[in-house]
């Protein structure tokens, strides 16, 4: 790739929004046949840069070159016409239409009298799908596909033109490990066709596996480009956050208390079966497994969102019946859900109201809500969790992911729960805030809370948990203490290679 000309070059890009210099002289070059990682914390300017590239925002200064030709981008369609295509993190597909219609949406092949040329449409689509080696065809309804396959449709859409550059934005966020392998094969294939690839991700593991170079943004500024083979995770992290991040094992050094929650033989239809475990006060119990292993569903059952088909839930040794979140909350069980924006927060409400939502019924003076009581709760947990917001009036939707997550955690902590379940505690949260959330979870355990952490990131599970429950296909495969667990044994347990171990 030494003498080839870059497929994409950005020079001195500046973009300011009222009060923020979102991009400050960003330069960035993508060569043909290269996978170029773009990294940075949330708010570092990655999304803005991509919006500039896609023509959604016009840059204040700077120039974009495609194949060394200066261009002005005005819309994603125009970018696509020039061979620059985006695979977005959030899928934008029409569920009710077929795969073929989605792929050629807006540019369906025509016959006379504006009729769609279905034969040509399906033939062209199947040709593209064949390249991707997927298990569905042009006529499949998109709504019937798994998320991973829907993502493949997005990728197929990119291949309808002969792309010069493809931009992947967090493509693996909702993929299982097996599905990731397929995605990486597609990327390899594109690479071999001399396509330049921009790969945006928070996941170091993947970055080091598939990229050639890594460019880092911090606070809208370009911090440098590293050759992937010459660098390591520490160096990249330091560039991103200006310090290094501790992800070592973290077993408890405090004594564990009584068993707070015990689950015996819990089953829920085909989702999971015969799940038993216990969690003590002062302990962090990690749940690790692939997407679909049944972890979230167990949490939802304990929180009263699903009815179990068999089994018992015991709190402090007493069997309890939990048929709704109202029951769960009354019993001191809290759930920080997987999808913070869809399930955890009322985005249009302010910080204070979100934090006091489950208990606002108890914060009344006469018929009215006591704002004073609410503000004092908010202030207390803002300080405790170090939530950075200009004030309680701030709308939660305007906070960063890390601060949003702290609002959800604060919401439940202020109810003084017995058991705190945290599902994917750091999904979509930048590296710096991740460490804070991890420390917070450890601290809560030290204060005597029983904490369950569900995570799809192995370093995270290893880092925060005292014990780890490994799940596969709706069953508990093995339970590890933090002393005995190794990455290999954990991977074996969650991929169904090893037979379930009887505790």
């Amino acid at each position: 790739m030494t003498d080839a000309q870059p497929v994409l070059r950005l020079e001195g890009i500046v973009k300011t929004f009222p009060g923020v210099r979102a991009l400050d002289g960003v330069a960035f070059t993508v060569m043909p046949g290269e996978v170029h990682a773009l990294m940075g914390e949330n708010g570092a300017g990655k999304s803005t840069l991509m919006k500039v590239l896609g023509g959604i925002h016009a840059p204040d200064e700077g120039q974009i070159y495609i194949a060394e030709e200066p261009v002005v981008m005005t819309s994603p369609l125009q970018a696509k016409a020039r061979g620059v295509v985006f695979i977005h993190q959030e899928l934008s597909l029409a569920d009710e239409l077929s795969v073929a219609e989605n792929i050629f949406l807006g540019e369906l092949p025509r016959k006379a009298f504006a009729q769609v040329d279905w034969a040509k449409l399906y033939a062209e689509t199947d040709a593209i799908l064949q390249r991707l080696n997927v298990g569905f065809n042009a006529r499949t309804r998109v709504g019937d596909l798994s998320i991973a396959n829907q993502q493949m449709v997005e990728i197929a859409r990119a291949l309808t033109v002969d792309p010069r550059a493809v931009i992947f934005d967090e493509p693996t966020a909702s993929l299982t490990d097996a599905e990731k392998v397929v995605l990486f094969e597609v990327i390899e294939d594109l690479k071999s066709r001399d396509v330049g690839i921009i790969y945006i991700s928070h996941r170091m593991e993947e970055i080091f596996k598939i990229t050639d170079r890594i460019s880092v943004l911090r606070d809208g500024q370009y911090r440098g480009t590293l050759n992937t083979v010459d660098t390591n995770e520490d160096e990249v992290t330091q560039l991103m956050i200006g310090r290094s991040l501790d992800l070592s094992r973290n077993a408890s050094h405090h004594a564990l208390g009584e068993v707070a929650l015990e689950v015996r033989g819990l089953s829920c239809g085909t989702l999971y079966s015969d799940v038993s475990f216990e969690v003590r006060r002062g302990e962090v119990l990690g749940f690790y497994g692939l997407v679909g292993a049944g972890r979230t569903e167990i949490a939802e059952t304990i929180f009263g969102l699903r009815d179990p088909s068999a089994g018992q839930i015991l709190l402090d040794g007493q069997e309890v019946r939990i048929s709704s979140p109202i029951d769960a909350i009354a019993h001191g069980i809290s759930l920080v859900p997987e999808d913070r924006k869809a399930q955890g927060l009322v985005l249009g409400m302010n910080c204070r109201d979100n934090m006091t939502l489950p208990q606002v019924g108890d914060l009344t003076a006469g018929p009215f809500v006591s704002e004073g009581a609410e503000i004092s709760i908010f202030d207390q947990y803002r300080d405790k969790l170090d939530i950075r917001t200009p004030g309680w009036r701030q709308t939660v939707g305007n906070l960063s992911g890390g601060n949003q997550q702290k609002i959800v955690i604060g919401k439940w902590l202020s109810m003084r729960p017995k058991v705190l379940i945290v599902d994917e505690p750091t999904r979509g949260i930048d590296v710096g805030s991740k460490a804070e959330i991890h420390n917070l979870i450890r601290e809560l355990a030290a204060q005597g809370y029983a904490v369950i952490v569900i995570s799809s990131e192995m370093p995270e599970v290893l880092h925060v948990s005292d014990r780890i429950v490994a799940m596969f296909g709706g069953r508990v495969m093995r339970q590890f203490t933090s002393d005995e667990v190794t990455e290999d044994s954990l991977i074996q347990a969650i991929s169904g290679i090893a037979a379930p171990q009887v505790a």
Partner: protein
Amino acid sequence: MKTQDLLKSNVLKHGAIWAFIVAELTFFTVAGSFLSTSDKSFMDFDNMLLLLKQSAPIGIIALGMTIIMINGNIDLSVGATFALAAVVMLDSMTWPFMVAMGDWAIPFSWLFALLTGIVLGAVNGLIVWKTGVDAFIVTLGSMLGFRGLVFMYNGENPTSNLNWTLVDFAEAQFLGIHTPTWFLLITALILWLLMSRTVHGRNAYAIGNNREAAVNAGIKVGPHFMWNFMLIGFLAALSAVVFYSESGSVNPNDGMLYELWAITAVVLGGTKLTGGYGSIISTLGGVIAIQLLRKGLGHIGADTETVNLVIGLILIAVLFLDRQMNRKSKGGLKI
């Protein structure tokens, strides 16, 4: 956003409808001085009092509709509920045991009408809660159904009963303000307190904004919906009570399109159709703005057809402006 900016944008959002009202007043006063056939000025005090009185029937319904829409629901059956409550009120006064009570029949007739409204609202609420069918569909059905009940009651004939004590009450002015206006203002005050100060109000916003998060926070969403539908049923009946106490006669087609006028006022006041955002006071502004338009256009000599056309255009223009302003501040998507 800084706290100051937040306050500024709030003033802008809540102030817009009142600025619009001031603009209307100015326009009609100036235009009226050239075009009006009457020698009275538009801003005449009595004229304004009358305007408030006339906005009461739809206003009271619109206030309730605000809560329903903040919830993320809608109620299309209010016009039919209004008519049925009116029929019950006027007809019940002719029942033998009611006639025997003399003027004591009045509070009972009101009670029957209000109960009718609450029951009809409860029917809507129960169906929305228990079936999970969208409120639009449920109340579209009940709109037709309730209207059917009105016709079953008395066929195509009007139901009449003029009680002069009632008329005197309805036409009375206390502190210069008409009885219907008092009902409107007191309802607005109570609902404003409900929505801004109580747990129920807080939950209404939370459910409308993110129903799943509300469920996860332990809010009983179904019963909450039910209460609000009973409330708007009550308010539709209250509106009928206020209006028909004076007129004493109800046609089976009365109240048609009231649901749409109420929704227009709510939307003009800035409440979002998608739920989670809105304000009682701004709806009051929306109600007044519509009534001002009607009266003002009449004042400068426009006929009814023109009035509807203009109101329709203004509604779209206002929402377009609102969208433009929001899009600029939030960087929303182009479509």
